[in-house]
């Protein structure tokens, strides 16, 4: 033990421990996660146009027609001139809230409450008139870290029949118009006092903003709950991320169908990883080979 000088080592340790702390203390701490706003999620890519208005819709969507399971959510429509962008706000919000609750070790009931409030299953983002005269559908049905599909196609404007019926939505008198569009019969209520050419999803082409829309089967219902001018610095972003894969509608629908009919097979094909799932069950390793399907009730029926 003679050559082991404890006090020397302790002193050296103390110096070593304090030096880096002194050096690092000059850096200002930057908050890197947990407090960025929804923009972080949607403001991916490059800005394309200045945002003028924002419309928030409450959305209801029948996930599973047989079981009549409904997902409720909130769609945000961003309007900048004749370009619009529409996406499910809840995909973002739900993630963040559960994260915050988790961090606070919140009681389970609170989660449940929050989930009820923020359930929503729509995974697409639709750009209308971006690029010019095109409609772009961005979808993350398999998760944003896996695959973001991007499908650009020429913009189609529904051929509307305007009726005499009116309804008040959000304090605005709205006129009912009907159309047959992308495989569904749609009803839309638009406000003449808001003379912009915009609406949820791909619905537009009326003399006023569409504040309410639903299809005849009531599988998809959107009702505006908020409308406001954008802040001067707000922009609409193109949402192109490194995970974006461009494809045509045929491929996009093929992928969606494959994903919903055989998710495991889809994941195996996408990741090139596990070709099969093996579960370590009580009876030793068991191969889970059964496929499982997710309900498929797309808004667009070709």
């Amino acid at each position, binding site marked *: 033990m003679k050559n082991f000088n404890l006090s020397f*080592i*302790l002193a*050296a*340790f103390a110096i*070593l421990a304090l030096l*880096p702390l002194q050096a*690092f*203390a000059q850096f200002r*701490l*930057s908050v890197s996660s*947990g407090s960025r*706003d929804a923009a*972080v999620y949607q403001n991916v890519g490059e800005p394309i146009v200045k945002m003028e208005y924002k419309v928030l819709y409450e959305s209801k969507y029948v996930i599973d027609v047989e079981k009549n*399971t409904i997902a409720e959510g*909130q769609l945000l429509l961003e309007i900048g*001139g004749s370009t619009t962008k529409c996406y499910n*706000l809840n*995909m973002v919000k*739900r*993630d963040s*809230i*559960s*994260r915050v609750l988790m*961090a606070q*070790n919140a009681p*389970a009931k609170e*989660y449940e409450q929050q989930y009820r409030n923020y359930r929503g299953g729509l995974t697409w983002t639709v750009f209308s008139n971006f690029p010019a005269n095109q409609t772009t559908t961005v979808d993350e049905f398999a998760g*944003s*870290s*896996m*695959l973001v599909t991007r499908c650009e196609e020429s913009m189609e404007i529904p051929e509307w029949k305007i009726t005499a019926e009116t309804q008040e939505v959000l304090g605005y008198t709205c006129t009912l118009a009907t159309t047959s569009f992308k495989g569904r019969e749609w009803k839309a209520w638009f406000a*003449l006092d808001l003379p912009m050419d915009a609406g949820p999803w791909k619905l537009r082409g009326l*003399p*006023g903003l569409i504040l309410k829309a639903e299809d005849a089967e009531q599988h998809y219902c959107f009702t*505006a*709950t908020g*409308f406001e001018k954008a802040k001067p610095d707000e922009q609409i972003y193109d949402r192109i991320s*490194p995970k974006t*894969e461009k494809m045509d509608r045929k491929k996009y629908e*093929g992928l969606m169908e494959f994903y919903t009919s*055989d998710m495991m097979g*889809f*994941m195996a094909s*996408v990741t*090139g*990883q596990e*070709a*099969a799932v*093996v*579960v*370590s*069950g*009580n*009876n*030793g390793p068991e191969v*889970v*080979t*059964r496929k*499982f399907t*997710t309900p498929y009730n797309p808004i667009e029926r070709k």
Partner: protein
Amino acid sequence: MRYIAVLLLFFFLPVQAQQVLKGVVREKESGQSIPSATVTLSKAGDQQLLTFTRTGDTGQFELQLTSAQQNMDLLLTVRSLGRKMYTQTLPAAALKNPRDLQIALESSDIALREVTIKGAPVRVKSDTITYDLSEFASEKDQHISEVLAKLPGVQVDKTTGKISYQGKSISKLMVEGLDVSGGQYRQVTDNLKADAVAKAEVLENYQPIQALQGKTFTDEVAMNLKLKDDSKDTWMFALSAAAGYEQDLTYSGKANALRFGKGAQDLWSYKTDHSGKDVAGELSYLSNMDRGHLHAMSYPELVPNPALSSPIGMGRVRDNRTNLLSVNHLNRVSDSRQSRVMVNYIHDENSMTNGVDETYHYGNKTIQTQERQDRLLVQDKVSAEWDSEQNSTTSYQRNQLKLDGAWDRGTQQLDDVFQRLKNKRLELQNTFHRLIGKPKSIMGFRSYIHYSYSPSDLYFQRPDREDQTQQYEAHQLFTDNQFYSNFQKGAFRMEWYSGLSGNLTFTELNDGNRYHPHRFQLYTVPSVSYNYRSLETQLQASVNYYHQPVSHFHKLYIDPMLRLKWEPNTRWALRLNGSQSHSLSGLSSYYPHLYWRNYRTQYRMNDVVPELTHRSARVETAYRRVIHGFYTSLAFSTFDMRYNQTTAMNYDQGVFLYQALNRTTKSSGYAVEGRISQGSYKWKLNATLDMTYSRNRGETYIQDMKQNYVGSNLTFRPTLRWSPAAYLTWMYDGVFMGSQTELEGSSTLPRLWNTQQTVSLNLGLADFNVNLSVDYFRNEVADHQFSNLWLGDIDWNWNVSKKVRMTFSIHNIFNKQTYQETFYSTVSTTQQWVRLRSREYLLQVNFSLP
């Protein structure tokens, strides 16, 4: 009729010709044209909207009027945001020959009636992926592990039960936000009923310490399970019993009670098994996140009880009698405080029969040994843990106290040799973690202290010697105390930890030889990472000073490490890393006294601390076309290792003697790994091929002679998965492995090919599910001599009701008795066989409540 209609149409067309109403809309004040203004026409005195249009870029518009519209008085309205509405009545008379309209809009101060959007913008980061399990679970799923394995991006390891997300192991598994299992989460995943869980959340960039949230970078992944309302805070019970036959009666049973509430959680379970299942695996720690960079230290063992192992997996081999009792209780005292208690006991008896023939090659000579043995390993183990945590937004403190007591008895019966080894172990350890958070810096302190007492008692009889008894005893006190800190500045992240660790070790053999190799270590490890867009880099230097008084050893090492990851787009990825490390080997490689390790192996090292210098580098590139289901990757890795001394082996009169030799030895090698995978969405088919080639060069000392060797291995692993219909899935897995060893200066051992192929079929109809799998092994046991083996298993599952499920299995249908294979390792050839469990039938019934 049709022709007449067409004719009539032509006839009337000129009469019905539409009038066009044209105009231009401008700003009143400036006269500038207004694009995108809405122009509508309605019947005067009525709100009924007849037609509409929008103005073009120059403010112009055109409206087509039908003949009906031409015959009524109309109201024209023009609207544009930020301007007053304009209306004009157009009498029917004026519509016969309309003039172009010039419309001027006044600007308006009236603000739009906005309805504030509540709740947006949201303060978020999308780090949570939530899976609604109702979309993934089926009635066939019994436990939650089966459902989790089906979640996209989630993998559940087949043997260990370890869960990972996108290839990264989860650091915590929680239920309703609380971690009751303390890392032994198979207790949750193997016992919690699948249908009690509503959602699974994957939390990326998970930071469990609230005071650090938003302040530091983390790439940990955690999982949280959320229960259905009716399963929360209620006791759930499950019972299962199985009986079967495999030479004698086999059985298996379990009973468990679980409760997951917001204030308290409980996990109680009892399991008993005599059917070959791996029950003990449930107690293994699959995650332990809170250790940070603390060094681990195990007790100083010289004579380990060799674990039972088999080349074909223990499930087909072991004959067991296992009893397990485990209790976990978590109490949440307040929002920021919780404590957890865990106690478990296991009695695990395992036996197997195997044979090993080894040939050691040196020069043109060989040493050959043969062992055929019945082995039995009995373990009794008690563990207790107390874990208390205080976690708030301003401070964090956690203390984990753990006590383990284990008693292992291993016996080996060979033809004329008997060996018995009793190892006992008492371990007491405490881990403390406190975070000192200041407004502008983060600093943490971690401390670990570990005491162990580990006596061992070896006894053997062999015909050519007197019976031998050897007792060994060790006490060890180890501690590691470390400060850490980390900071982020823009794209840079700096991390640093420094500490002092050391152990006091006291050992004694029954021949009176004592040895006390205390060791101290002082270390500091700074690292800097730079993450910008698709590029991630990390550079780390590790500075270590070691001091071992008894060996007069002290040394300073500085080791660099570089890591780089670049993923420019969805298609390409490039990863590169290189590092150097120095490490000191453990007690058994410098223990200076002669001792028996088993009935035929003796060790005598010298008091020189063996230093290992390890350098390695790896480069990997991957290309994928997600939408075409195509994936390929190629990796190259290389390593170089140097020991400052070597272990020489000498064999004489049935005893291997391993001795330290003051000579540097080195080994080096490289490996190339490739993967290609193609999925077809159309055919519901996925095919993957993995290839690995490795070549290692090294040197060893046998019978006072240096022997250089080069070993090479080539492996192909094809897999295929095909689901032609919803109720049917076929799978194929193959492993084709060729190996060869060249002994420099003498011979090349023959190339051996071992292959294993598995075909399995799963058929699911209504409440029934059948799983059939057949394995075929073709192993080259010697040059051009093959051993062929077919193994088959079948399982029928029947969901009798929501609460009752029955499974009938037949394993080893063809009743094969032995598995045989030959493999090369450095300069030895090992031919081994194991006795398999015979054909067995098992009927299992599961009940669950509520």
